[in-house]
């Protein structure tokens, strides 16, 4: 049969955002593929060169609406390093806790998306329902559902409101029961497993060389998590274990993310225990940064996010460059789908948790 190129995107139910996966098919089998991005390019890195350091925090939120807290967090960490600022202990705990809540929220959004990808609307409804609880927690903490503008250079904007910790504990208790429900709904469903097991294989060596990080890397059995290997904030004081899986396939990626949600619940509980009960949550910071460079990185829900900031002594960054975890994962996505069938593409690419806002910037 003649081979032909098919555009899966930029408007396609599989893509979750504007991007284009060009695939070359021989019958139903994919023989070649090429990801095409840039449809959502906003010139973020050029825009921030015209804004002062504080104005960039809400812009960093908008790199990805699903995990906006982690993006403003990594930005603030980079600028703090540039200005040589030490963040108060309580703010570090609030940040780490928000990171983990954001991770759960983001993984739930991913779960909702793959639910529809794999043809089960129940998963979508369950996951969005539970995500709403975490968004309510964020609303009480920050005043917004998605783009929080909460992290500040030198701390966080405000302390948690009254009864927030009580609500948080109740939500975690409820959510743990729901995780078991997902287990019964998906993990023990033969249909789901048939659509995930053995697909999108990539060897650990190739995965590392391709620069893939985060849950996809840990699903290849590589013990690499920046919270553990390059700890920031207070992660080195916490006792938690890294979630890995040896499968290297789509099923392993699914399992790692589900395990991470449980682990995030544990981390938040431990933060609540060890957190100082009161104290400052923010320090005064200068408006200008000295000339120099700084780099900060953290474990985003999708992988390693890194910001490299160049200061020139003024109130605006001279250059702010962003490493988006998904940008690199997408660059290797053609290797993941080569050799599989067209119907497997949504399953394989859905497991990467695609977000175009941070990819195109």
């Amino acid at each position, binding site marked *: 049969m003649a081979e032909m190129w098919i555009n899966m995107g930029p408007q396609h139910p599989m893509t979750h955002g504007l991007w284009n996966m060009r695939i070359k098919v021989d019958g139903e089998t994919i023989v070649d593929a090429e990801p095409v*991005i*840039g449809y959502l*390019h906003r*010139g973020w*890195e*050029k825009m921030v060169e*015209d804004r002062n350091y504080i104005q960039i925090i809400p812009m960093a939120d908008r790199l990805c609406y699903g995990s906006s807290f982690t993006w403003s967090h990594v930005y603030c960490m980079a600028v703090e390093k540039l200005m040589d600022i030490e963040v108060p202990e309580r703010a570090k705990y609030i940040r780490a806790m928000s990171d983990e809540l954001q991770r759960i929220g983001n993984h739930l959004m991913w779960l909702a998306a793959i639910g529809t990808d794999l043809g089960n609307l129940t998963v979508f409804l369950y996951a969005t329902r539970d995500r709403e609880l975490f968004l309510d927690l964020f609303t009480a903490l920050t005043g917004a559902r998605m783009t929080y503008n909460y992290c500040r250079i030198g701390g966080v904007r405000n302390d948690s409101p009254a009864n927030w910790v009580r609500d948080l504990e109740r939500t975690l208790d409820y959510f743990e029961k729901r995780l078991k429900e997902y287990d019964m709904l998906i993990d023990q469903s033969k249909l789901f497993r048939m659509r995930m097991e053995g697909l999108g294989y990539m060897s650990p*060596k*190739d995965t*590392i*060389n*391709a*620069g*893939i*990080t985060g849950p996809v890397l840990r699903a290849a059995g*590589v013990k*690499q998590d920046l919270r553990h*290997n*390059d700890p920031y904030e207070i992660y080195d004081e916490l006792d938690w274990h890294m979630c890995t899986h040896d499968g290297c396939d789509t099923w392993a990626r699914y399992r790692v993310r589900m395990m991470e949600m449980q682990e995030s619940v544990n981390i938040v509980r431990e933060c609540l225990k060890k957190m100082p009960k009161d104290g400052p949550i923010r320090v005064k910071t200068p408006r200008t940064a000295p000339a120099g*460079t700084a*780099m900060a*990185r953290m474990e985003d829900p999708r992988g*390693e996010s*890194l910001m*490299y900031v*160049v200061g020139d002594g003024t109130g605006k960054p*001279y*250059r702010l*460059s962003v*490493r988006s975890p998904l*940008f*690199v994962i*997408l*660059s*290797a996505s053609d290797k993941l789908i080569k050799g599989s069938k067209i119907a497997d593409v949504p399953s394989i690419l859905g497991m990467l948790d695609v977000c175009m806002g941070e990819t*195109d*910037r």
Partner: protein
Amino acid sequence: MESNVYSVEQVKDKVAQAFPAVVFNDAKIEPRRLYMAADRSVLFELCKLLKDELGFDHCSLVSGVDYCDKFQTVYHITSYTSNITVEIVVDLPHDEPEVDSVTPLWAGANWHERETYDMFGIIFKGHPNLRRLLLPEDYKFFPMRKDCHEGGR
């Protein structure tokens, strides 16, 4: 896979031994970090040493900076076994921004180099597919250069 665990000092010594011209930034001392500046003629060999002998298996970021009198490419390279991140800065003349590509070593650098070419016009010699990535193919500018003010405030 490389399994030897090196300390920052050991990495520094090995690099200094093989490449005496590499300049280390001793003002910035941080745990698990090593800052250095290299000449573009030795960049590829330096990266090869880091990858093949010292176990630096992950390329985090390749980015460019336009300092008006020169370009700079910045490499953040991580070792998963030793948990060390190396930052290499390479100066390039403004009128001839060319540097060797590290994509043959780390496939993860592929799109970062393409993006840097897209935004700064820095040529990565030896890159397998150096085309525009985020901007249209027929775009006439390199927008992240400091002399490009298209629609700026």
